């Protein structure tokens, strides 16, 4: 009887698989990513290295000494004091205490803060509060301290915002109207992203993070690119991180372009090039985890996308490794056996410059 290897499904469920089953899932996962994105599959040696990471007997694993990378975050310190909505543990800490805890107790390479809604639109009316907190905290942090949130263009559609609801218009066949609504929302979003960036820049902003760009589709992604370009014109020294929302840019509009390139359907190795052209300093690759497939399948797929993006990119590529992303299981408390294997594989095989 062959020895079983403990692993996980994409929803976090623990299971034991044969070595051959894991190798088969790795092969299927990398082939799926390669077919979709038109990028090379992992080589036999890389697949075997991934198998070895998954098959390591220890509960947790880590990269080899000397191969460590930079870990940026998407509002991690917020999860110290927020409740379930923010994936948080609800500890009674202030923003300042949470950021310093993350920097000093956890040894994070960078820290950040963001509005508890984690969207840029609601920051606008309270920008003075955010600027004040940002400024105060930036005086006592040593590691790079970023401000981050999601563009989240969905907030600009009725009833939350001023634009007709594209998600309602589109299924009714009102394509032109839906596209016009998205273009209008894109313009509102771009303005708000630039507004928040500029105001925080006035108080010494060390870096801005546009997280999960494109969650509302290609026009959402376009707004982020345009905002980066605009901010960089008058603030060339403002570092900006931009992260994707999934392995390809969702074509909710289907026709929007940036510098002559249609955004819908761009895969990570293509996303990173448009981000680079806009002036982004670090690009975050996101790949959705499929809950009905194993971590082996999901991770092989994610590593394939990340590796292609890292090779194509001239700027640092960080793999997004939050809940349900890049092979991390989709559950509120992702198991650390799976999380650390994802971490190691994306760095050592995916050649990510950071996470």
């Amino acid at each position, binding site marked *: 009887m062959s020895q079983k290897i403990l692993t996980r499904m994409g929803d976090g469920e623990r299971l034991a698989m044969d070595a051959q089953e894991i190798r088969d899932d790795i092969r299927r996962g990398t082939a799926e990513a390669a077919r979709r994105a038109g990028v090379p599959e992992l080589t036999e040696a890389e697949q075997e290295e991934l198998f070895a990471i998954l098959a390591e007997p220890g509960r947790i694993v880590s990269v080899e000494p000397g191969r460590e990378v930079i870990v940026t975050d998407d509002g991690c310190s917020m999860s110290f004091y927020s409740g379930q909505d923010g994936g948080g543990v609800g500890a009674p800490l202030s923003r300042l205490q949470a950021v310093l805890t993350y920097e000093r107790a956890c040894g994070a390479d960078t820290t950040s803060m963001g509005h508890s809604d984690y969207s840029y639109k609601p920051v606008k009316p309270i920008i003075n509060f955010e600027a004040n907190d940002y400024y105060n905290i930036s005086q006592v942090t040593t590691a790079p301290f970023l401000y981050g949130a999601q563009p989240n263009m969905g907030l600009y559609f009725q009833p939350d915002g001023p634009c007709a609801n594209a998600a*309602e218009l*589109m299924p009714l066949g009102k394509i032109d109207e839906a596209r016009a609504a998205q273009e209008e929302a894109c313009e509102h979003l771009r303005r708000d992203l630039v507004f928040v960036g500029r105001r925080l820049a006035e108080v010494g902003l060390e870096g801005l993070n546009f997280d999960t760009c494109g969650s509302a589709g290609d026009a959402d992604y376009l707004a982020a690119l345009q905002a980066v370009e605009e901010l960089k014109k008058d603030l060339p020294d403002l570092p900006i991180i931009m992260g994707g929302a999934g392995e390809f840019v969702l074509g909710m509009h289907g026709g929007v372009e940036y510098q002559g390139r249609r955004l819908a359907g761009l895969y990570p190795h293509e996303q990173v090039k448009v981000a680079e052209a806009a002036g982004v300093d670090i690009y975050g690759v996101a790949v959705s985890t499929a809950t009905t497939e194993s971590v082996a399948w999901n991770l092989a797929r994610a590593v394939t996308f990340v590796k292609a993006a890292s090779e194509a990119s001239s700027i640092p590529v960080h793999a997004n490794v939050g809940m349900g992303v890049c092979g991390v299981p989709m559950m509120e408390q992702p198991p650390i056996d799976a999380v650390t294997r994802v971490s190691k594989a994306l760095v050592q095989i995916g050649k990510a410059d950071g996470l």
Partner: protein
Amino acid sequence: MSEALFQASVDAVVRGDAKKAEELARQGLAEGIEPLVLINQAFVPGINQVGEMFGAGKLFLPELIMSAKAMQAATDIINAAIPEGNAQEGRGRFVIGTVEGDVHDIGKTIVVALLKANGFEVLDLGRDVPTDRLIEEADKFNAHIIGTSALLTTTMPAQQKLEEALKKAGLKGRFKTMVGGAPVTERWAKKIGADGFAEDAGAAVVVAKQLLATN
């Protein structure tokens, strides 16, 4: 000849050319092709291809909507030619909404589009839909399936609330239920007693068809 017509029909659906799809449906019937053969071999492969292309980011929502329209136009013509009593199983009626407290509707919109493209009659209640309303509207619509979407771990319990409300009202057997949304998993579906779970929009169509077949 049929093969050429089948391929042209697939192309018409993929291109979202409703006029051409209608023309080919009429032509197929005029050539004596059995209506059900015509639907299943000329048009269904087209919409399946559209679903796959959408899932892979090779085709986008507006094109998907156009393809759905083309599919609808062709199937309306072909269905009208099916003699009374020989019709294929009735179209599935699907009520869908994002659960109460959740305002995310992008994913649900894609599910609606793909369901329509695959011949379902869909009543889209939008977002932030209270449980009572889902049941009331399903009753009025005489739905086969109630589908709910939840994008947040904090709004997922509303899917459980629907299951409990259906049981309490003695309606659990009348409507099948499907759940989806980013944090929703097969395990959650089983735990709350939902009849189906779909990882993405393409899977939603497959599961809905399976549930319809067991109705």
